[in-house]
Protein backbone atom coordinates (compact mmCIF):
# COMPACT_ATOMS: atom_id res chain seq x y z
CA UNK A 1 0.00 0.00 0.00
CA UNK A 2 2.74 2.45 -0.91
CA UNK A 3 0.22 4.76 -2.52
CA UNK A 4 -2.16 5.08 0.42
CA UNK A 5 -2.87 8.67 1.37
CA UNK A 6 -1.49 7.96 4.83
CA UNK A 7 0.29 4.83 5.87
CA UNK A 8 1.92 4.29 9.24
CA UNK A 9 3.35 1.14 10.77
CA UNK A 10 5.00 0.03 14.01
CA UNK A 11 4.88 3.54 15.35
CA UNK A 12 6.20 3.96 18.87
CA UNK A 13 6.37 7.43 20.34
CA UNK A 14 6.10 9.48 23.50
CA UNK A 15 7.56 12.36 25.40
CA UNK A 16 11.19 12.40 26.44
CA UNK A 17 11.99 8.88 27.55
CA UNK A 18 8.39 7.92 28.24
CA UNK A 19 6.78 5.82 25.51
CA UNK A 20 3.07 6.56 25.30
CA UNK A 21 1.88 4.87 22.10
CA UNK A 22 3.30 1.66 20.72
CA UNK A 23 2.96 -0.57 17.68
CA UNK A 24 0.48 1.70 15.94
CA UNK A 25 -0.26 1.01 12.30
CA UNK A 26 -3.04 1.77 9.81
CA UNK A 27 -3.66 2.96 6.29
CA UNK A 28 -6.08 5.49 4.92
CA UNK A 29 -7.00 6.07 1.29
CA UNK A 30 -7.79 9.42 -0.37
CA UNK A 31 -10.87 11.03 1.12
CA UNK A 32 -11.28 8.32 3.74
CA UNK A 33 -12.13 8.88 7.36
CA UNK A 34 -10.99 7.28 10.60
CA UNK A 35 -12.38 7.60 14.11
CA UNK A 36 -9.84 7.33 16.92
CA UNK A 37 -11.57 6.28 20.11
CA UNK A 38 -10.48 5.51 23.64
CA UNK A 39 -10.78 6.73 27.18
CA UNK A 40 -8.96 9.74 28.58
CA UNK A 41 -5.21 9.49 28.60
CA UNK A 42 -5.06 6.47 26.28
CA UNK A 43 -2.84 8.20 23.75
CA UNK A 44 -5.20 9.65 21.15
CA UNK A 45 -3.69 13.11 21.19
CA UNK A 46 -0.22 11.61 21.32
CA UNK A 47 -1.01 9.76 18.08
CA UNK A 48 -2.11 13.00 16.40
CA UNK A 49 0.94 14.87 17.71
CA UNK A 50 3.14 12.06 16.43
CA UNK A 51 1.62 12.43 12.98
CA UNK A 52 2.45 16.13 13.24
CA UNK A 53 6.00 15.47 14.35
CA UNK A 54 5.60 16.96 17.79
CA UNK A 55 6.45 13.96 19.93
CA UNK A 56 9.57 11.91 20.29
CA UNK A 57 9.28 9.17 17.66
CA UNK A 58 11.17 6.12 18.86
CA UNK A 59 10.40 3.72 16.03
CA UNK A 60 8.16 3.20 13.04
CA UNK A 61 7.53 4.48 9.54
CA UNK A 62 5.06 7.01 8.30
CA UNK A 63 4.36 7.96 4.71
CA UNK A 64 2.01 10.15 2.79
CA UNK A 65 1.22 9.04 -0.78
CA UNK A 66 4.33 6.90 -0.65
CA UNK A 67 6.63 9.66 0.62
CA UNK A 68 8.19 8.98 4.01
CA UNK A 69 7.84 11.86 6.44
CA UNK A 70 8.70 10.59 9.91
CA UNK A 71 11.81 12.77 9.99
CA UNK A 72 10.23 15.90 8.53
CA UNK A 73 9.47 18.93 10.69
CA UNK A 74 5.84 19.85 11.36
CA UNK A 75 5.67 22.60 8.79
CA UNK A 76 6.91 20.29 6.03
CA UNK A 77 4.18 17.80 6.93
CA UNK A 78 1.59 20.54 6.50
CA UNK A 79 3.03 21.18 3.05
CA UNK A 80 2.62 17.44 2.33
CA UNK A 81 -1.08 17.61 3.15
CA UNK A 82 -1.69 17.16 6.87
CA UNK A 83 -4.05 19.77 8.32
CA UNK A 84 -4.12 19.93 12.11
CA UNK A 85 -6.77 21.28 14.48
CA UNK A 86 -5.22 20.78 17.94
CA UNK A 87 -7.21 19.60 20.95
CA UNK A 88 -6.41 22.77 22.88
CA UNK A 89 -7.27 24.70 19.69
CA UNK A 90 -4.10 26.73 19.71
CA UNK A 91 -5.68 29.92 18.39
CA UNK A 92 -3.07 32.66 18.14
CA UNK A 93 -4.30 35.15 20.72
CA UNK A 94 -2.58 38.21 19.31
CA UNK A 95 -3.79 37.59 15.75
CA UNK A 96 -7.21 38.49 14.43
CA UNK A 97 -9.48 35.81 13.05
CA UNK A 98 -8.46 36.87 9.56
CA UNK A 99 -4.78 36.73 10.44
CA UNK A 100 -5.12 33.32 12.08
CA UNK A 101 -6.36 32.14 8.69
CA UNK A 102 -3.87 34.11 6.61
CA UNK A 103 -0.74 32.77 8.31
CA UNK A 104 -1.77 29.22 7.45
CA UNK A 105 -2.88 29.91 3.87
CA UNK A 106 -1.62 27.73 1.05
CA UNK A 107 -2.81 27.84 -2.54
CA UNK A 108 -5.81 25.65 -3.29
CA UNK A 109 -9.56 25.38 -3.06
CA UNK A 110 -9.81 26.69 0.48
CA UNK A 111 -9.26 30.40 0.92
CA UNK A 112 -10.56 32.91 3.43
CA UNK A 113 -13.75 33.55 1.44
CA UNK A 114 -14.64 29.86 1.26
CA UNK A 115 -13.89 29.14 4.91
CA UNK A 116 -16.00 32.14 5.92
CA UNK A 117 -18.80 30.70 3.81
CA UNK A 118 -18.45 27.45 5.70
CA UNK A 119 -18.37 29.21 9.09
CA UNK A 120 -20.48 32.36 8.70
CA UNK A 121 -20.19 33.20 12.39
CA UNK A 122 -16.42 33.52 11.97
CA UNK A 123 -16.91 36.00 9.16
CA UNK A 124 -18.69 38.33 11.58
CA UNK A 125 -15.74 38.12 13.93
CA UNK A 126 -13.02 38.52 11.34
CA UNK A 127 -11.45 41.55 12.97
CA UNK A 128 -11.63 40.19 16.50
CA UNK A 129 -8.51 38.87 18.14
CA UNK A 130 -8.05 35.22 18.96
CA UNK A 131 -8.45 35.81 22.68
CA UNK A 132 -11.86 37.44 22.18
CA UNK A 133 -13.55 34.34 20.80
CA UNK A 134 -15.90 31.90 22.51
CA UNK A 135 -14.95 28.24 22.79
CA UNK A 136 -17.13 27.29 19.85
CA UNK A 137 -15.70 30.07 17.70
CA UNK A 138 -12.18 29.02 18.61
CA UNK A 139 -12.95 25.48 17.56
CA UNK A 140 -14.39 26.65 14.25
CA UNK A 141 -11.37 28.81 13.71
CA UNK A 142 -9.03 25.91 14.46
CA UNK A 143 -10.75 23.84 11.78
CA UNK A 144 -10.97 26.75 9.36
CA UNK A 145 -7.27 27.42 9.84
CA UNK A 146 -6.45 23.78 9.14
CA UNK A 147 -8.57 24.00 5.97
CA UNK A 148 -6.60 27.04 4.83
CA UNK A 149 -3.58 24.76 4.41
CA UNK A 150 -5.64 22.85 1.82
CA UNK A 151 -4.98 19.50 3.43
CA UNK A 152 -5.53 16.07 1.93
CA UNK A 153 -6.11 14.79 5.45
CA UNK A 154 -7.55 16.75 8.37
CA UNK A 155 -6.54 15.79 11.90
CA UNK A 156 -9.39 16.80 14.19
CA UNK A 157 -8.61 16.29 17.87
CA UNK A 158 -11.87 16.37 19.83
CA UNK A 159 -13.48 19.15 17.79
CA UNK A 160 -16.73 18.78 19.75
CA UNK A 161 -15.20 18.87 23.23
CA UNK A 162 -16.89 21.33 25.53
CA UNK A 163 -19.25 22.75 22.91
CA UNK A 164 -22.92 23.56 23.47
CA UNK A 165 -25.25 20.98 21.88
CA UNK A 166 -26.41 23.37 19.19
CA UNK A 167 -22.80 24.05 18.15
CA UNK A 168 -22.05 20.34 18.23
CA UNK A 169 -24.81 19.91 15.68
CA UNK A 170 -23.45 22.69 13.53
CA UNK A 171 -19.93 21.26 13.67
CA UNK A 172 -21.23 17.80 12.85
CA UNK A 173 -22.97 19.16 9.78
CA UNK A 174 -19.79 20.92 8.79
CA UNK A 175 -17.66 17.80 9.13
CA UNK A 176 -20.19 15.86 7.08
CA UNK A 177 -20.08 18.57 4.43
CA UNK A 178 -16.30 18.39 4.29
CA UNK A 179 -16.41 14.61 4.00
CA UNK A 180 -18.85 14.94 1.12
CA UNK A 181 -16.39 17.25 -0.61
CA UNK A 182 -13.77 14.53 -0.42
CA UNK A 183 -11.60 15.84 2.41
CA UNK A 184 -10.17 12.89 4.34
CA UNK A 185 -10.03 13.15 8.09
CA UNK A 186 -8.96 11.51 11.31
CA UNK A 187 -11.43 12.30 14.05
CA UNK A 188 -10.55 11.90 17.72
CA UNK A 189 -13.76 11.98 19.73
CA UNK A 190 -15.30 11.20 23.08
CA UNK A 191 -18.74 11.46 21.49
CA UNK A 192 -18.32 7.91 20.29
CA UNK A 193 -21.58 7.37 18.47
CA UNK A 194 -21.30 10.68 16.72
CA UNK A 195 -17.77 9.90 15.61
CA UNK A 196 -18.77 6.47 14.33
CA UNK A 197 -21.62 8.02 12.41
CA UNK A 198 -19.22 10.39 10.68
CA UNK A 199 -16.45 7.95 9.77
CA UNK A 200 -15.96 4.81 7.73
CA UNK A 201 -13.22 3.21 9.82
CA UNK A 202 -12.31 3.27 13.47
CA UNK A 203 -9.56 2.31 15.86
CA UNK A 204 -9.74 2.07 19.62
CA UNK A 205 -6.68 2.87 21.71
CA UNK A 206 -6.12 1.28 25.10
CA UNK A 207 -3.00 2.39 26.95
CA UNK A 208 -1.33 3.44 23.77
CA UNK A 209 -2.03 0.31 21.74
CA UNK A 210 -4.65 -0.48 19.13
CA UNK A 211 -7.18 -2.91 20.55
CA UNK A 212 -9.72 -2.62 17.76
CA UNK A 213 -9.32 -1.78 14.11
CA UNK A 214 -12.19 -2.12 11.67
CA UNK A 215 -15.24 -0.55 10.10
CA UNK A 216 -17.10 2.02 12.16
CA UNK A 217 -20.30 0.21 11.30
CA UNK A 218 -19.02 -2.88 13.09
CA UNK A 219 -18.86 -0.95 16.35
CA UNK A 220 -22.31 0.48 15.79
CA UNK A 221 -23.74 -2.98 15.14
CA UNK A 222 -21.97 -4.64 18.04
CA UNK A 223 -21.27 -2.16 20.82
CA UNK A 224 -19.79 -4.74 23.21
CA UNK A 225 -16.23 -3.86 22.19
CA UNK A 226 -17.03 -0.21 22.70
CA UNK A 227 -18.52 -0.79 26.10
CA UNK A 228 -15.46 -2.75 27.09
CA UNK A 229 -12.83 -0.24 26.00
CA UNK A 230 -14.55 3.09 25.94
CA UNK A 231 -17.22 2.48 28.55
CA UNK A 232 -20.64 3.96 28.66
CA UNK A 233 -19.37 7.51 28.57
CA UNK A 234 -19.47 7.16 24.81
CA UNK A 235 -23.23 7.20 25.08
CA UNK A 236 -23.02 10.80 26.26
CA UNK A 237 -23.13 12.07 22.75
CA UNK A 238 -25.63 9.56 21.48
CA UNK A 239 -27.07 10.86 18.27
CA UNK A 240 -28.62 8.70 15.57
CA UNK A 241 -25.87 7.67 13.19
CA UNK A 242 -26.19 9.35 9.85
CA UNK A 243 -27.18 7.15 6.93
CA UNK A 244 -24.20 6.56 4.70
Amino acid at each position, binding site marked *: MADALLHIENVRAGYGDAVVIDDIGFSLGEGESLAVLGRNGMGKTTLILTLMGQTNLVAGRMSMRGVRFERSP*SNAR*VAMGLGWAPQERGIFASLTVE*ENLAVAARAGHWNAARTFELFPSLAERRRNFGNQLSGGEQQMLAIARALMTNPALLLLDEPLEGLAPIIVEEMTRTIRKLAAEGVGFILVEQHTQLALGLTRQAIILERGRIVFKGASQELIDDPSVLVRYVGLRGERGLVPAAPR
Partner: protein
Amino acid sequence: MPRPFLFPTRITPPVLPIIQGIVQVLFDGIAFGMLLFVMSVGLSITLGMMHFANLAHGVFAMLGGYVTVVLMHKAGVPFLETLPAAFVIVAIVSVPLERFVYRRMYSAKELDQVLLTVGIIYMAIAAAAYVWGPEPMAFALPDYLTRYRDIGSFSFSTYGALLLAIGTVITLVIFYGLERTRFGAMIRAAVDDRRVALGVGINVNRVFTITFAVGSGLAGLGGALGINALGLDPSFPIEYLVFFLIVVSIGGGGTVKGALAAALLLGLCDTAGKYYVPQTGAFIIYVVMLLVMLWRPNGLFGRP
Protein backbone atom coordinates in the same frame (compact mmCIF):
# COMPACT_ATOMS: atom_id res chain seq x y z
CA MET B 1 35.08 54.47 30.47
CA PRO B 2 32.76 56.98 32.14
CA ARG B 3 29.89 57.77 29.87
CA PRO B 4 29.60 61.43 28.89
CA PHE B 5 26.37 63.29 29.00
CA LEU B 6 24.28 62.28 26.05
CA PHE B 7 24.11 65.80 24.74
CA PRO B 8 26.14 68.48 26.44
CA THR B 9 23.50 70.85 27.70
CA ARG B 10 23.75 74.51 26.90
CA ILE B 11 21.34 76.46 28.95
CA THR B 12 20.88 80.00 27.84
CA PRO B 13 20.65 82.01 31.07
CA PRO B 14 17.77 84.40 31.03
CA VAL B 15 14.38 82.76 31.59
CA LEU B 16 12.69 79.84 33.22
CA PRO B 17 15.58 77.53 34.00
CA ILE B 18 13.23 74.94 35.52
CA ILE B 19 11.06 74.62 32.45
CA GLN B 20 14.10 74.76 30.26
CA GLY B 21 15.57 71.91 32.23
CA ILE B 22 12.43 69.85 31.94
CA VAL B 23 12.15 70.42 28.21
CA GLN B 24 15.82 69.60 27.81
CA VAL B 25 15.46 66.37 29.77
CA LEU B 26 12.34 65.38 27.86
CA PHE B 27 13.96 66.02 24.51
CA ASP B 28 17.26 64.35 25.30
CA GLY B 29 15.59 61.56 27.23
CA ILE B 30 13.17 60.67 24.47
CA ALA B 31 15.93 60.88 21.86
CA PHE B 32 18.11 58.59 23.97
CA GLY B 33 15.14 56.28 24.53
CA MET B 34 14.59 56.04 20.78
CA LEU B 35 18.21 55.10 20.33
CA LEU B 36 17.89 52.38 22.97
CA PHE B 37 14.72 51.15 21.29
CA VAL B 38 16.37 50.83 17.89
CA MET B 39 19.25 48.95 19.47
CA SER B 40 17.23 46.53 21.56
CA VAL B 41 13.91 45.92 19.79
CA GLY B 42 15.41 42.97 17.89
CA LEU B 43 16.45 41.30 21.11
CA SER B 44 12.96 41.66 22.51
CA ILE B 45 11.31 40.01 19.51
CA THR B 46 13.80 37.19 19.14
CA LEU B 47 13.67 36.47 22.86
CA GLY B 48 9.88 36.24 22.74
CA MET B 49 10.00 33.98 19.72
CA MET B 50 12.70 31.46 20.51
CA HIS B 51 13.10 32.07 24.24
CA PHE B 52 16.75 32.29 23.47
CA ALA B 53 18.76 34.42 25.86
CA ASN B 54 21.08 36.18 23.43
CA LEU B 55 23.27 38.21 25.74
CA ALA B 56 25.59 38.91 22.81
CA HIS B 57 23.08 41.28 21.20
CA GLY B 58 25.39 44.21 21.96
CA VAL B 59 28.06 42.68 19.75
CA PHE B 60 25.90 43.57 16.77
CA ALA B 61 25.54 47.14 17.99
CA MET B 62 29.30 47.41 18.43
CA LEU B 63 29.92 45.98 14.98
CA GLY B 64 27.59 48.59 13.49
CA GLY B 65 29.62 51.28 15.21
CA TYR B 66 32.88 49.97 13.79
CA VAL B 67 31.39 49.68 10.30
CA THR B 68 30.50 53.35 10.44
CA VAL B 69 33.86 54.49 11.83
CA VAL B 70 35.85 52.42 9.35
CA LEU B 71 33.78 53.63 6.41
CA MET B 72 34.16 57.22 7.53
CA HIS B 73 37.86 57.08 8.30
CA LYS B 74 39.12 54.68 5.64
CA ALA B 75 36.77 55.38 2.77
CA GLY B 76 35.67 58.92 3.52
CA VAL B 77 32.00 57.99 3.40
CA PRO B 78 29.78 60.67 5.00
CA PHE B 79 28.27 59.71 8.36
CA LEU B 80 24.66 59.50 7.23
CA GLU B 81 25.57 57.31 4.28
CA THR B 82 27.36 54.82 6.51
CA LEU B 83 24.16 54.13 8.45
CA PRO B 84 22.44 51.91 5.87
CA ALA B 85 25.72 50.05 5.47
CA ALA B 86 25.91 49.45 9.23
CA PHE B 87 22.41 48.01 9.11
CA VAL B 88 22.97 45.79 6.07
CA ILE B 89 26.42 44.49 6.97
CA VAL B 90 25.45 43.59 10.53
CA ALA B 91 22.24 41.93 9.32
CA ILE B 92 24.20 39.82 6.86
CA VAL B 93 26.86 38.86 9.40
CA SER B 94 24.19 37.79 11.88
CA VAL B 95 22.66 35.17 9.57
CA PRO B 96 25.41 32.53 9.67
CA LEU B 97 25.79 33.04 13.41
CA GLU B 98 22.10 32.31 13.87
CA ARG B 99 22.05 29.40 11.43
CA PHE B 100 25.12 27.55 12.55
CA VAL B 101 25.63 28.49 16.18
CA TYR B 102 22.46 29.75 17.83
CA ARG B 103 20.04 27.37 16.15
CA ARG B 104 21.61 24.38 17.86
CA MET B 105 20.99 25.97 21.23
CA TYR B 106 17.31 26.95 21.09
CA SER B 107 16.23 23.93 23.09
CA ALA B 108 19.29 24.01 25.35
CA LYS B 109 19.12 25.00 29.01
CA GLU B 110 19.18 28.70 29.76
CA LEU B 111 22.49 28.40 31.54
CA ASP B 112 24.07 26.89 28.44
CA GLN B 113 22.64 29.71 26.32
CA VAL B 114 24.05 32.25 28.74
CA LEU B 115 27.46 30.60 28.72
CA LEU B 116 27.51 30.44 24.94
CA THR B 117 26.50 34.05 24.41
CA VAL B 118 28.79 35.37 27.13
CA GLY B 119 31.57 33.42 25.40
CA ILE B 120 30.65 35.12 22.15
CA ILE B 121 30.83 38.50 23.86
CA TYR B 122 34.37 37.86 25.04
CA MET B 123 35.42 36.54 21.64
CA ALA B 124 33.98 39.66 20.06
CA ILE B 125 35.75 41.91 22.56
CA ALA B 126 39.07 40.19 21.86
CA ALA B 127 38.51 40.30 18.11
CA ALA B 128 37.58 43.98 18.16
CA ALA B 129 40.59 44.83 20.31
CA TYR B 130 42.82 42.89 17.90
CA VAL B 131 41.47 44.52 14.77
CA TRP B 132 40.71 48.05 15.95
CA GLY B 133 42.72 48.32 19.14
CA PRO B 134 41.56 48.57 22.74
CA GLU B 135 41.24 52.37 22.75
CA PRO B 136 37.94 54.18 22.25
CA MET B 137 37.51 55.04 18.59
CA ALA B 138 38.04 58.64 17.66
CA PHE B 139 34.81 59.85 16.22
CA ALA B 140 33.43 63.20 15.29
CA LEU B 141 29.95 63.92 14.13
CA PRO B 142 29.66 65.99 10.98
CA ASP B 143 29.38 69.69 11.76
CA TYR B 144 25.71 70.03 11.05
CA LEU B 145 24.95 67.45 13.76
CA THR B 146 26.89 69.28 16.44
CA ARG B 147 24.83 72.44 16.15
CA TYR B 148 22.02 73.56 18.33
CA ARG B 149 18.80 74.96 17.12
CA ASP B 150 17.21 77.66 19.25
CA ILE B 151 13.47 77.78 19.41
CA GLY B 152 12.27 80.52 21.70
CA SER B 153 14.35 80.18 24.83
CA PHE B 154 14.91 76.46 24.26
CA SER B 155 17.76 74.95 22.37
CA PHE B 156 17.79 71.52 20.80
CA SER B 157 20.70 69.56 19.41
CA THR B 158 20.39 68.51 15.79
CA TYR B 159 21.92 65.18 16.75
CA GLY B 160 19.04 64.58 19.17
CA ALA B 161 16.62 65.55 16.42
CA LEU B 162 18.25 63.01 14.11
CA LEU B 163 17.84 60.26 16.72
CA LEU B 164 14.21 61.24 17.18
CA ALA B 165 13.53 61.28 13.46
CA ILE B 166 15.20 57.98 12.66
CA GLY B 167 13.75 56.36 15.77
CA THR B 168 10.25 57.49 14.87
CA VAL B 169 10.51 56.26 11.28
CA ILE B 170 11.84 52.88 12.41
CA THR B 171 9.16 52.56 15.06
CA LEU B 172 6.46 53.21 12.47
CA VAL B 173 7.96 50.76 10.01
CA ILE B 174 8.25 48.07 12.68
CA PHE B 175 4.68 48.55 13.84
CA TYR B 176 3.41 48.48 10.31
CA GLY B 177 5.42 45.40 9.44
CA LEU B 178 4.42 43.56 12.56
CA GLU B 179 0.77 44.55 12.76
CA ARG B 180 -0.25 44.91 9.14
CA THR B 181 1.63 42.35 7.07
CA ARG B 182 1.29 38.60 6.75
CA PHE B 183 4.92 38.16 7.67
CA GLY B 184 4.36 40.20 10.83
CA ALA B 185 1.38 38.01 11.70
CA MET B 186 3.63 34.98 11.29
CA ILE B 187 6.11 36.48 13.74
CA ARG B 188 3.34 37.13 16.25
CA ALA B 189 1.98 33.61 15.73
CA ALA B 190 5.42 32.13 16.44
CA VAL B 191 5.72 34.26 19.58
CA ASP B 192 2.24 33.21 20.74
CA ASP B 193 2.77 29.49 20.24
CA ARG B 194 5.73 28.16 18.37
CA ARG B 195 4.55 24.54 18.21
CA VAL B 196 1.16 25.40 16.81
CA ALA B 197 2.77 27.84 14.37
CA LEU B 198 4.87 24.98 13.02
CA GLY B 199 1.81 22.76 13.02
CA VAL B 200 -0.16 25.06 10.75
CA GLY B 201 2.71 25.17 8.30
CA ILE B 202 4.65 28.28 9.24
CA ASN B 203 8.34 27.86 8.54
CA VAL B 204 9.30 29.23 11.92
CA ASN B 205 13.03 28.78 11.32
CA ARG B 206 12.95 30.93 8.23
CA VAL B 207 10.72 33.55 9.80
CA PHE B 208 13.09 33.60 12.73
CA THR B 209 16.24 33.95 10.66
CA ILE B 210 14.81 36.95 8.85
CA THR B 211 13.57 38.52 12.08
CA PHE B 212 16.89 37.90 13.73
CA ALA B 213 18.77 39.47 10.83
CA VAL B 214 16.57 42.58 10.84
CA GLY B 215 16.83 42.88 14.62
CA SER B 216 20.60 42.53 14.49
CA GLY B 217 20.77 45.04 11.66
CA LEU B 218 18.81 47.50 13.76
CA ALA B 219 21.22 46.95 16.64
CA GLY B 220 24.03 47.73 14.20
CA LEU B 221 22.25 50.86 13.06
CA GLY B 222 21.72 51.88 16.68
CA GLY B 223 25.36 51.26 17.49
CA ALA B 224 26.39 53.43 14.57
CA LEU B 225 23.93 56.21 15.39
CA GLY B 226 24.88 56.12 19.03
CA ILE B 227 28.67 56.36 18.87
CA ASN B 228 28.45 60.01 19.80
CA ALA B 229 26.38 59.34 22.88
CA LEU B 230 27.67 55.95 23.95
CA GLY B 231 31.23 55.89 22.73
CA LEU B 232 32.80 52.95 20.94
CA ASP B 233 35.45 50.61 22.21
CA PRO B 234 35.76 46.82 22.44
CA SER B 235 34.04 46.61 25.82
CA PHE B 236 30.82 48.01 24.35
CA PRO B 237 28.85 44.71 24.40
CA ILE B 238 29.45 44.27 28.14
CA GLU B 239 29.13 47.90 29.04
CA TYR B 240 25.65 48.26 27.57
CA LEU B 241 24.43 44.73 28.19
CA VAL B 242 22.51 45.92 31.20
CA PHE B 243 20.63 48.48 29.08
CA PHE B 244 19.41 45.81 26.69
CA LEU B 245 18.43 43.55 29.53
CA ILE B 246 16.53 46.36 31.23
CA VAL B 247 14.61 47.16 28.06
CA VAL B 248 13.71 43.52 27.54
CA SER B 249 12.81 42.74 31.12
CA ILE B 250 10.86 45.92 31.74
CA GLY B 251 9.14 45.71 28.39
CA GLY B 252 8.44 42.00 28.51
CA GLY B 253 9.91 39.70 25.86
CA GLY B 254 8.21 39.53 22.50
CA THR B 255 6.40 42.85 22.56
CA VAL B 256 7.44 45.85 20.54
CA LYS B 257 5.12 48.11 22.49
CA GLY B 258 6.79 46.96 25.67
CA ALA B 259 10.28 47.51 24.28
CA LEU B 260 9.31 51.01 23.15
CA ALA B 261 7.78 51.95 26.49
CA ALA B 262 10.71 50.51 28.40
CA ALA B 263 13.31 52.17 26.20
CA LEU B 264 11.63 55.56 26.56
CA LEU B 265 11.31 55.12 30.31
CA LEU B 266 14.93 54.13 30.57
CA GLY B 267 16.08 56.99 28.36
CA LEU B 268 14.09 59.53 30.34
CA CYS B 269 15.13 58.25 33.76
CA ASP B 270 18.77 57.98 32.80
CA THR B 271 18.84 61.48 31.32
CA ALA B 272 16.88 63.00 34.20
CA GLY B 273 19.13 61.30 36.72
CA LYS B 274 22.30 62.56 35.11
CA TYR B 275 20.86 66.02 34.71
CA TYR B 276 19.41 66.60 38.16
CA VAL B 277 21.55 64.41 40.41
CA PRO B 278 24.82 64.00 38.54
CA GLN B 279 26.55 62.20 41.44
CA THR B 280 24.05 59.35 41.69
CA GLY B 281 22.41 59.77 38.30
CA ALA B 282 23.68 56.54 36.80
CA PHE B 283 22.10 54.69 39.70
CA ILE B 284 18.55 55.93 39.10
CA ILE B 285 17.78 53.50 36.31
CA TYR B 286 18.40 50.52 38.57
CA VAL B 287 16.01 51.85 41.16
CA VAL B 288 13.36 52.41 38.51
CA MET B 289 13.93 48.96 37.10
CA LEU B 290 13.62 47.39 40.52
CA LEU B 291 10.36 49.21 41.18
CA VAL B 292 8.88 48.23 37.83
CA MET B 293 9.88 44.62 38.30
CA LEU B 294 8.31 44.54 41.77
CA TRP B 295 5.16 46.11 40.42
CA ARG B 296 4.97 43.97 37.28
CA PRO B 297 7.25 40.96 37.38
CA ASN B 298 6.52 40.08 33.74
CA GLY B 299 7.30 43.54 32.47
CA LEU B 300 5.01 46.38 31.49
CA PHE B 301 3.46 44.49 28.59
CA GLY B 302 4.66 40.99 29.37
CA ARG B 303 2.44 37.96 29.54
CA PRO B 304 2.22 36.06 32.78
